[in-house]
Each structure stands twice: as C-alpha cells, then as structure tokens.
C-alpha cells in the first residue's frame, strides 16, 4: 500500500526497539474481551485506476451543468469559479496544514484569514468577522444563541422567510436548552410582517433574511428599529452574499450580527457541503462571539505578524463555559471566499451582482409576458417566485427529462404555496438558456 512506507525490515527493527513480538503484540493494554472478533467486512482495495473509473461512473449519475440547466438556488448557487481560485486552492501548504496553533509556521493561513475577516466585515458593513463557521444555517443558530447570552433573554423572533432549513437547524439547536422561537408571518408582497414584534415581550433577538427565501429584498432598517426599541439584537441572515455586491449592507441598516452562507464565493456546490458560515458583528460583542479569530500583532523584532487571539472565549480553555463548542473554522472555504473576493474586487463584485440581478429580471419579465404569475411584487436580486397553473407538475417533470430544472417547488416548505416555484438565475445562464426555458413552459 503506497500510503504505508514501512518495509518488512523497518517493521522488524522497530518491533525490536519497542519489545514487541509482532504487530499484534503492540496492543497488550487492550483486554481480550475488548478485542474485535472477526475481520472488518469491507470491499477489497482498488487501484488508483479502478477507483477513478468507479467514482467517475458514480459521478455521471448526477444532474449537473452544462448538460443540465438548473434554475434553482434556494441556498446553493451555481456561479463560475475562476480557474485562478481553483488553482491556488490546490496549494498543499494551505490544504494539508492544520489550525494555525503555531503562528511562526502558519503565517500564510493566518494572514489569509485576517484578510478574509476584513473583507467579510467590509462586505457586510460590520466591525468584526470571525474566521468562519460551518454553514449559513449553523451560523444563524450560533448568532441566536449569542443573542440569548448577551441579553439573558430566552425567546427569539425569526421571519418565516428565513430559509426553512435554517429555521429547522435553529430549532434543533434550541430544543435541548428549551429556548423559544417565534416565527413571523409574511405579507402579500413577499416580505416579513414585522408588526408582531412590537407586542412581543422578552425578545433576545429578531432574525430576518435578506434577500429572503422568496428572493425579495427586506426592509432591514425598519426591522432594526423595531427590535432595538424592544431591547433585542438585530440579526440578519443571508444565503446569497453576492447580493451585497449591489445592495446596502446589513451593517449600514442597523444589524448587530450579520451571518449567512458564503458558498457563492468560489465554493463548489458539492451537494451542500462543505460550505462557509460567514459571521460578523459589532466589536462591543466580540467577547460573546463564537469561533476562531485572527488578530494582528508584532514579533520580537517588530515585524508584523498574525496570531489566533481572544482564545479564552473558546472551548479548549473555557470548556463548558465557552461561547460555543465549535473548534475549527471552515478555513479552506474561508480562504476560497477570500481569494474570490480579492479576485473580483469592488469593481468585479458590483458588476457580477448587476449581471445576476439583470438576468433574473429578464427571465421574470419574459415569464410574465408568457402569462405566468409573479405573486410577490417586492424587488428581488437573483431569485424570485413564480406561480404556475395547477397542472404545472407534469410540465416540471417533462422539463427535467429535457434536462432543465425549472425552479424549486415551494409547496414542500410552504404547503399553502402549491404551484409556486422559486427560480434562480446567475451569470451561468445565458439569454438563450432563459429563452429556451420560457419557450418550453409556454404551452
């Protein structure tokens, strides 16, 4: 086996050095009644070429672009990934290192994460971002737990237009601790009905997603005002960070914590993971923040360098009193997003966001022309909801056979929205792709 370097001679001489008779003799401390009975029933080893062929065949049984045109976002977005980003990410100095516990040997990771923190904070208009956590959903759960810690209140309000799977994750995190989650209904225009917030007591936080799950841009400023009056924290969530290439940031609109999913920034969709939990907040709450933080400092010769810092918040020091049980960040995904943000820059990010928005508007317009309903009239970014006649399901299936995924059916998450589909258009869809889709849908 090519990963195991020991020759029989090596093994013999090392066994002599440790005083064991054979390899099985290395385990005298494992009592007989703890030994495994029988071999592991696993397939026999494959060669590199057999493995490649097998995985190649498996991977062909998945519908992906360019063969398929997938007009579906809903928390996972198809964007072009620059070759320079993929190439740099294969640098094994980044890939095969661990958490930068020894700063002298990991300045590369540390500076890159410091730059990531800075760019995320700037993108979201916040003062400080952490080195990332698992995904957008767990980021929201952590943000709400943080608000509970800061305010010492045990109830939160969450918009029903926060991604339904994110809300499910929050419920899972809240259940054992017994915290309460109240969901806010949505209005006819596809945004959150914030009016109940005024009458709710004891709110630790209000969480709103923008653009929301229906793709609509929320009035974050109004939400911030309402929850601040109620002495709770304002948390904004997002699934599509590219929107902030164009839109006003959550920070400018009063967010105390802005968190969400960073997959759009150069990270492959990979069936949902690994992705990137972005997490940013106000400096005054930094000591309550979960996750790793990198800070700038000096070495003994006065040279600038970077270290993990404020570690006393974390589990390896504070154990059961830590701000979170989280240990690592999603470092390589954070690095990917940093490379992507650096490559795009202000100019590229804004232009790319405009392209996404304009293309989505084009498809919206063409569908409208074709007689399809657009039920929510709030402005959207690159996703929007379409209402089809009741018998659309058969068309949806027929389109799939033609290798088009015509949006995401909303009924599974919102039973009252049968026949409603969430469409997404990114820069990967051409005008021809959209025209073909409209042609297929129009009877």
């Amino acid at each position, binding site marked *: 086996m090519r990963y195991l370097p020991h020759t029989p001679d090596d093994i013999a001489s090392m066994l002599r050095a440790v005083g064991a008779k054979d390899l099985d003799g290395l385990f005298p401390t494992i009592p007989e009644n703890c030994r495994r009975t029988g071999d592991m029933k696993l*397939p026999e080893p494959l060669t590199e070429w057999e493995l490649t062929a097998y995985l190649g065949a498996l991977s062909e049984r998945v519908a992906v672009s360019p063969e398929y045109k997938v007009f579906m976002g809903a928390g996972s977005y198809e964007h072009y990934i620059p070759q320079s980003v993929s190439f740099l990410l294969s640098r094994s100095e980044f890939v095969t290192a661990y*958490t930068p516990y020894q700063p002298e*040997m990991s300045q590369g990771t540390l500076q890159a994460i410091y730059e990531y923190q800075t760019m995320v*904070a700037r993108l979201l208009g916040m003062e400080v971002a952490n080195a990332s956590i698992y995904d957008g959903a767990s980021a929201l759960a952590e943000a709400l737990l943080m608000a509970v810690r800061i305010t010492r209140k045990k109830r939160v309000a969450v918009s029903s237009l926060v991604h339904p799977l994110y809300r*499910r994750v929050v419920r*899972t995190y809240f259940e054992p601790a017994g915290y309460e989650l109240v969901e806010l209904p949505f209005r006819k225009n596809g945004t959150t009905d914030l009016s109940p917030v005024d009458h709710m007591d004891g709110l630790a936080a209000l969480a709103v997603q923008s653009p929301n799950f229906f793709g609509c841009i929320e009035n974050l400023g109004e939400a911030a005002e309402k929850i601040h009056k109620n002495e709770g924290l304002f948390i904004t969530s997002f699934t599509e960070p590219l929107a902030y290439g164009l839109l006003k940031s959550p920070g400018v609109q009063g967010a105390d914590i802005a968190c969400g999913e960073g997959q759009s920034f150069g990270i492959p969709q990979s069936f949902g993971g690994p992705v990137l939990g972005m997490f940013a907040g106000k400096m005054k709450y930094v000591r309550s923040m979960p996750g790793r933080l990198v800070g700038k400092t000096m070495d003994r010769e006065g040279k600038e*360098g970077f270290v993990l810092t404020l570690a006393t918040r974390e589990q390896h020091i504070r154990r059961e009193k830590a701000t979170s*049980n989280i240990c*690592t960040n999603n470092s390589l995904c954070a690095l990917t997003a940093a490379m992507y943000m650096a490559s795009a820059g202000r100019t590229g990010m804004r232009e790319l966001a405009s392209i996404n928005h*304009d293309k989505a508007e084009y498809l919206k317009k063409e569908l409208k022309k074709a007689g399809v309903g657009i039920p929510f009239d709030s402005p959207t970014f690159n996703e929007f909801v379409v209402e089809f006649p009741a018998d659309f399901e058969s068309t949806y299936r027929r389109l799939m056979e033609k290798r088009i995924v015509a949006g995401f059916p909303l009924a599974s998450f919102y039973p009252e929205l049968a026949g409603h589909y969430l469409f997404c258009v990114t820069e990967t869809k051409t005008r021809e792709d959209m025209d073909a889709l409209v042609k297929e849908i129009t009877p």
Partner: protein
Amino acid sequence: MKESLGTTGLILNEPLLWEKGKSGRCGISLPRHDVDPAPLDKDLTTEGPDLPDLSEVDVVRHYTRLSQWNFGVDSGMYPLGSCTMKYNPKINEKLANLKGFSGAHPLLPAHLSQGVLKLMFELEQFLAEITGMDAVTLQPAAGAHGELTGMMLIHAYHKKKGGHRSKIIVPDTAHGTNPASAALCGYRPVPVRSNEQGILSTGAVAELMDEDTAGIMVTNPNTLGLFEENIKKIAEIVHSKGGLVYCDGANMNAVMGIVSMGEIGVDVLHLNLHKTFSTPHGGGGPGSGPVCVRKHLIPFLPVPRIIEKNGAYALSSEFPESIGKLQAFYGNFGVMIKAYCYIRSMGPVNLRKASQLAVLNANYIKENLKKVFHLPYDRNCMHECVFSDKFQNAYKITTLDMVKRLMDYGFHPPTIYFPLVVSGAMMIEPTETESKETIDLFIDSLKAVANEAKENPDLLRQAPGRCKVTRLDEVSAARHPCLAG
C-alpha cells in the same frame, strides 16, 4: 545526527491585499451582460463593497507567497497529537472535484442525484462496519459538531424515556469540546479524574454515576494515548443506571479492525473523517464528523436519512423522533468523497495495518525519547505518547521553548500543554504515514533540542530563528485586539 531538514528558504514579503492593487482592476473574467440593464431602486443599492481591485496576477502572487509561509503535511512531519495529521492522498482530491460531485445541487430530486446518494449510503455502511455500530449519520460538519449531535441524541433518548437528567460525566483528560458540547444540551459536566495509570477506574465512575446522570463521555483511546482498559465495566455501570456511553472517536486511528466500539458498550460515537480517514485539514477545516449509533438511538438520528430500495436511493425525513437538522443540507459531502476513496483504496487489511503501524511509530518514539524527556505514564501507548518538560525545567526551559526550537529543525511541533492533567505536556502523534527514516530524524532532532536545553538554553528561548517571523506578542494581540484592517 544526519543533516537536519530545517533551513532558511526564499521567503518573499507580501503586503495585505488592500495595500496592493488599483481601483478599476479586476481579477476575474466577467460573464457577458447579454440582457438589458434593469437597475434597482437607488435607495437599495451602493457603489459596491469596499474591496481592493486587483489583477489576476496580483492575486496569484499574493496567495502563492502566503502559501510559502505555511507548513503542511506535504511539507513534512506534523506530529500534532490528537489531530492525526496523516498523509492526504492526491487522487482523493481529484475525485472529489469531479464535476458530477462538485457541481451537484443539494436540492436535486433523488432520481437526478443517484451517484451522490449511493456514495453516501455506502460510506455510512463502511463506517458502521469499521466501528461495529448499527447506523451512521454523515451530517455533522466537524468533530465538535458530531459531539453536539451525540449529546442531542442522548438528550432525546432520555426525554423519550420520560426522565430529565441534568449531569454528564466527563474525564479530566477530555478535549474541551466535550464539556462545551454537553453544556449546549443543558448538561452540567461532572469531571472524573483518571487514575495513576492515566485511565479511568471503575470505582471513580461508579461513585459519580446516578440516575440524574445522562451518561459518560469517554475518549478511547484517551488523550494520553492510552486505551481505557476498564471501558467494558464502565459501560456496564453507566448502563445499569440507565445512562448512555458516548465515545469521542478522535483517536480511532489506533484501533481500526482491532476494537469494535459497538462490542465494548459504546452507544454513540463520533468519527473525524479529517483524522482517521485521511481527508486534509485545510488549515482548520472543513472537516466531517459522522456519528455512529447503536440500534436504540437510530430513531433520533438527524434527518434526512438516506434510504435504499431495490438499488434506488432517496432522502427521507419521515422520522418523527429525529432531533432535526445540524446543517442546512446533508453534511460535508466533498469531504465524504475523500474518506470514501481512502477506505476503498485501503481495504480492510490495510486499514488494520494502518492502525498497527500508527501504534508502532508512537511506541518507537516513546521508547527512544523516554530517557530524554519525562514520560509521566510509562506504559504501552496507542497512536500517541505524552511527555512533559519536567527534566528541562531544571534549565528554566519549557515545552514551548523546545517546540519552537524544533521548528528550526524542520518539524511541526507536537500538541502542547494538552491534556491538562500533564503539566507542560508534549503530545506526539506520528501517524502511520511517516517512515522510519523520518521518525529517526525527528527523534534525533528532539534529542538535539534536549541537549541544547542543557548546553545553550538561550538558543531555545530565542527560537524559532528560521521562520518568517520570530515569536509573536500574543499578549498585546489579546489586550488590544486588531481583528480587521
């Protein structure tokens, strides 16, 4: 000793991203704007985020230079205890990037994602077989996330049984993630001391275990690199009071094919695919922390679960007792592919051999260094061994000084100051993928450092001398945090 690995390389300085570039540059190929502009209301938009404008060359040079300041497993031996920094096979990276995997949308209907679901289903089965458990969830994103999942499963189990329990037993050698995960589930961790042999005694557990205690979190092999010999009896004690046994499987690399966790009384266990199953650590993630359970915990596993019927795979959320979801989707699929490839490349015989060689390497290091460094628990170790700086304290030299000097010899330091039960701990885990020659050089280097501690202690206090930076001021970093530029 032979010539050391460490030397000074060609290291280029590189400023922060925003200290480079010029407004108007762009490092990506912008897609065609093939539709009419449809501007948004000006009240909603800005001129774009405050990001630096760089060219593609700027970006490539920046990150290439940064990468050269880093040390990874591909650079050299990385004996970080409890982290299992084994070699990360390259074919696995390539296969995880196949378009059919990396381009898969998580909400595709099952019939359009059969390849993905089959791979996940098979991986679950492999991990169940390796651990001797009954079922597996791949959803947790990392080890700590797996622990949290495990604690939630235990919480749900007790809730179903109608009893509320408020405590959980956690040994003093445990990773900090253990008590932190337990606390998130509302459990109060009750510490139990390991005995003079470095393991748990049945008596100590029996004394603490009662009907208000949800169970115990053990790491086996533990963080001293020792097998918890009394585990079976301990499990019986915990079970007899209605509790459950959680095993932190971070150290599974020592016992593949040798111990079946299901047979020794473990009810729930997490694995770290980025440790035992060779997926790269990525500078601190992404990892993957599958959780394996015995039959009685299956109903509570996170949803959706992968089900198979006549060779067709689907995702099902029809499990009403499930704890729910830990991530928006199904876990770190990209990492799972690599672990799957590793298991298929190794096969059962080589996996077992990997554990044997990991244990051989650790014992070989222990035997060769125990005269040079104090070995608090002088017993057969598993995949790692723990020394202390007790001998070197005589020269006013600490573990920190020694490992910083080890960098100058071209090795990454071991884990230090953990576990907490050993003062000045130095926890060495070589893994099976290091050859005898590399390990001999590592041993010689540590011996040389120990000698310098005696002969020239200042050299150690000034170390490292050959890295991009010298020791950094962590005190002012924490007193006056500068977390963004």
